[in-house]
């Protein structure tokens, strides 16, 4: 007799809700057209908030695999999905005024944002190569379209093309790596891959060959050197609201992908991927920090700073210890928070017909707007890793993990480069605090955005004074 087993749907409840709502929002866009954009915006925010609540309420409930072992709900996925949803709530809030001022306030933006968020959530919860790939593509395709939304801008179109082509190559690499690993292990399920490798008796040469392609894919998506080429152009070329979107939550999703593949699937061949990641990480930290110094455009500078932060995130992963993974997770989460604030500040300073994306535009900000200058100061010092701001503890956590596995030379390079990195953040503060203002215009941003951006920067400070609880969460996820 045949039994038909229904998978445990409830484990994927947040994704299902998100999918249903995204479809509804799509219908609203299709039927109401331009008139309904405000409604679409509200609905999207509501969707993200309710999804976050669903995820929050499910924390601590029994998790596990579902859909034939292709999908997992565990503490790791809960925390990251919650972070992704909350960050995207803030992202949408920051971008609205900017989009309105540039005639980009369209329903499609929000539909794409929702589907992209869904893709990120699938990536975080994937426990099967195919699921992972599906999530990745869902996220990436939406992002390509979002970058291209500003159709009249040649820079944005160029960025979208670059992003699409390089992203497609990366996906191809990843897929190729997955297929090689399938060839060696005979399975696509991450859990089974781990079991087969643990059991031994497989060809490690071929396995490590496949691993190389996986690492390339991960490197591309995170933006690690030498697979970083797309990142500065896309950050620079995309409308700032989209840059904000790309720079925050997708990094968390890419981090989750790295953890799922390397730690959940291939932890037993740690020695193979450790060396590769050391190269990627060191190169990212060195190149990101040094090239960022030469930038005059704030978005490009932050793009290179992202590259160096990615290098730090990789440091924790490559340590191969639970504490290192926890450190990386802490880093990824807090980096998303800082990045959110920094790009949010660019949006806050921009107004109709003016992009506040050059470092020059921030001259004398502390005279014009002492409060927002202080907020930006907090964000910049945090990115530089100066205590008592949260960026310091992120660096502390990952560097501690590599000191604990005796990779002292890597640690020395990392800390020396963070001294070089401090320079361009200091320059930003110098421009804001020590230079005289050249323009006198008031902020035109809506009140709620000002409140949230202040809360965002103050959260960076508060987490810097009491980092304990978030660190405890990250550690408990991996223990």
């Amino acid at each position, binding site marked *: 007799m045949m039994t038909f087993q229904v998978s445990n749907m409830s484990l994927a409840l947040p994704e299902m809700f998100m999918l249903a709502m995204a479809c509804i929002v799509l219908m609203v866009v299709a039927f109401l057209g331009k008139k309904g954009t405000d409604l679409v915006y509200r609905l999207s925010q509501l969707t993200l908030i309710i999804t976050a609540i669903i995820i929050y309420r499910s924390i601590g409930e029994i998790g596990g695999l579902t859909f034939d072992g292709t999908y997992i709900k565990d503490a790791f996925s809960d925390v990251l999905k919650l972070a992704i949803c909350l960050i995207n709530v803030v992202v949408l809030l920051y971008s609205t005024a900017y989009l309105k001022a540039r005639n980009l306030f369209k329903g499609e933006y929000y539909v794409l944002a929702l589907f992209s968020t869904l893709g990120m959530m699938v990536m975080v919860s994937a426990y099967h190569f195919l699921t992972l790939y599906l999530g990745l593509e869902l996220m990436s395709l939406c992002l390509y379209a979002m970058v291209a939304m500003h159709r009249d801008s040649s820079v944005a179109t160029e960025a979208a093309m670059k992003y699409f082509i390089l992203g497609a190559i990366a996906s191809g690499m990843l897929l190729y790596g997955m297929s090689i690993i399938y060839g060696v292990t005979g399975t696509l399920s991450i859990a089974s891959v781990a079991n087969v490798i643990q059991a031994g008796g497989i060809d490690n040469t071929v396995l490590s060959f496949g691993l190389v392609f996986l690492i390339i894919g991960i490197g591309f998506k995170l933006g690690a050197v030498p697979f970083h080429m797309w990142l500065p152009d896309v950050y620079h070329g995309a409308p700032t609201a989209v840059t904000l979107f790309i720079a925050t939550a997708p990094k968390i999703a890419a981090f989750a992908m790295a953890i799922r593949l390397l730690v959940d699937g291939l932890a037993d061949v740690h020695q193979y991927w450790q060396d590769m990641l050391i190269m990627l990480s060191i190169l990212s930290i060195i190149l990101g920090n040094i090239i960022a110094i030469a930038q005059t455009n704030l978005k490009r500078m932050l793009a290179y700073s992202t590259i160096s932060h990615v290098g730090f995130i990789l440091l924790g992963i490559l340590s191969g210890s639970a504490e290192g993974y926890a450190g990386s997770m802490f880093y990824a989460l807090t980096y998303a928070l800082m990045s959110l604030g920094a790009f949010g500040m660019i949006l806050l300073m921009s107004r109709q017909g003016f992009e506040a994306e050059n470092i020059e535009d921030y001259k004398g900000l502390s005279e014009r707007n002492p409060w927002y200058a202080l907020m930006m100061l907090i964000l910049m010092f945090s990115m530089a890793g100066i205590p008592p701001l949260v960026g310091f503890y992120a660096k502390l956590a990952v*560097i501690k993990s590599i*000191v604990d596995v005796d990779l002292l030379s890597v640690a020395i390079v990392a800390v020396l480069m963070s001294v070089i990195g401090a320079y361009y953040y200091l320059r930003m503060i110098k421009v804001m605090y020590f230079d005289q203002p050249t323009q006198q215009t008031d902020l035109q941003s809506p009140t709620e955005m000002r409140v949230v951006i202040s809360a965002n920067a103050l959260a960076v400070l508060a987490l810097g004074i009491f980092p304990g609880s978030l660190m405890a969460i990250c550690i408990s996820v991996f223990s």
Partner: protein
Amino acid sequence: MLTNFPLLSLVIWLPIIGGIGVLLNGDNNPWARPLSLLIAVITLVASLGLYTGFDTATYQMQFVEHASWIAAYNINYSLGIDGFSMPLIILTAFSTVIVVVAGWEVIQHRVSQYMAAFLIMEGLMIAVFSSLDAILFYVFFEAMLIPLFLVIGIWGGPNRVYATIKFFLYTFFGSVFLLLALLYLHHVTDSFSILDYQQAALSMQQQTWLFLAFLIAFAVKVPMWPVHTWLPDAHVEAPTGGSVILAAITLKIGGYGLIRFALPIAPDASMALDWLVIGLSLIAVVYIGFVALAQSDLKKLIAYSSIAHMGFVTLGLFIVFRIFANSATGSGAVLAVEGAMIQMISHGFIAAAMFLCVGVLYDRMHTREISAYGGVINTMPKFAGFAVFFAMANAGLPGTSGFVGEFMVILAAFQANFWFAFLAATTLILGAAYTLWMIKRVIFGEVANDNVAQLTDINRREFLMLASLAAIVLIMGLWPAPIIDVMHSSVEHLLTQISQSKI
């Protein structure tokens, strides 16, 4: 007695929270100045409680506070003071009062921010001196850079941006090695407690690397030759208050760090590499002394003289190994370390006073060039009296605090090696030469030009400020026993720690 009252937390957080309060009050608030002064004075009074409640008989940490801070990594909010940190905390609290008073009329631009920066910095510096947890120490050690960076950058001179970024990157460069050393020690001891670090058994190789890391971190702060170049730039560009805090406190953190970390954690490496520190210290004393002689800028001259004086601190701390080797009793070692400590505290007062004197002149003439002055005594007799007194103290005249520390270190150096003492003693000539020559050119002689002729003498505020410093310098010079008593047990404990091999 209120033994459980968290007095240390009070003196740390009162200025920080008060500073934030002043900051939030907004610029050009007429209450910013009095409120800041009130906070600074209350903090000073509270910090005196650390002195009156201090038990001089023990080397153990006192006023201990302990609370879990980042439980996941076992990082604690752990505070305590001993004979080394207590005097430095009071020095910090006192200097901040002086800085607030010094900026009273001078600072007219973003007053609240200025006062807030110094108050917050006061809390952070006191916290550095009282942290017993390595990460807590590092957090405050680094956080201190932020307000100082802003103070130099916002209220500084024409070349302030260069100076402040140089200052920040230099010290940040030093401190990342400190962070690595602290993390490595955690790897070895599985604890972040500084006291546990001090008891860790370490091989010679481990100690050597740790020692070098500590040395880089703290040598930049002290600053020792050849990593001193940020100091003259920072001093010249900083506003008077910034110079006072830099000279009086932040340099002392370097010396304090060597006492708290380098010597007790890596005693064998300290012994093996003492030639390095002694050599650099003697270069600082002799070579920098000559450099000071050649300066034409008042602040630069005092900055270089600071480096030379701090050379005595590092010299005093590291000649102890030679003294142990030469004499069985090691009584000279106590003299050396105590001399170094006295030198730190005394330099805190004297350098602060010297920078204030320059500030007084600069506020009136807006130049620091020595050649722009001459015959100031004719128009500012009261000021000239103070300036000459502090110059004498800077040159190490007996009866002032400047004499005590230098004399103790030179005396101890004789037990280590005659030539050390000989070279160190050249400061008595060099120091007198550059200080007195400066005084001669600035204060004495005929009125040099019209600007000097129009100078007005110091007002009550300035008089009070300089008089209180002069009184302390005099008292410390005539009767240094109370300070020596306070630190005696801790010094002996340090010497026991470093005389035992850890290998």
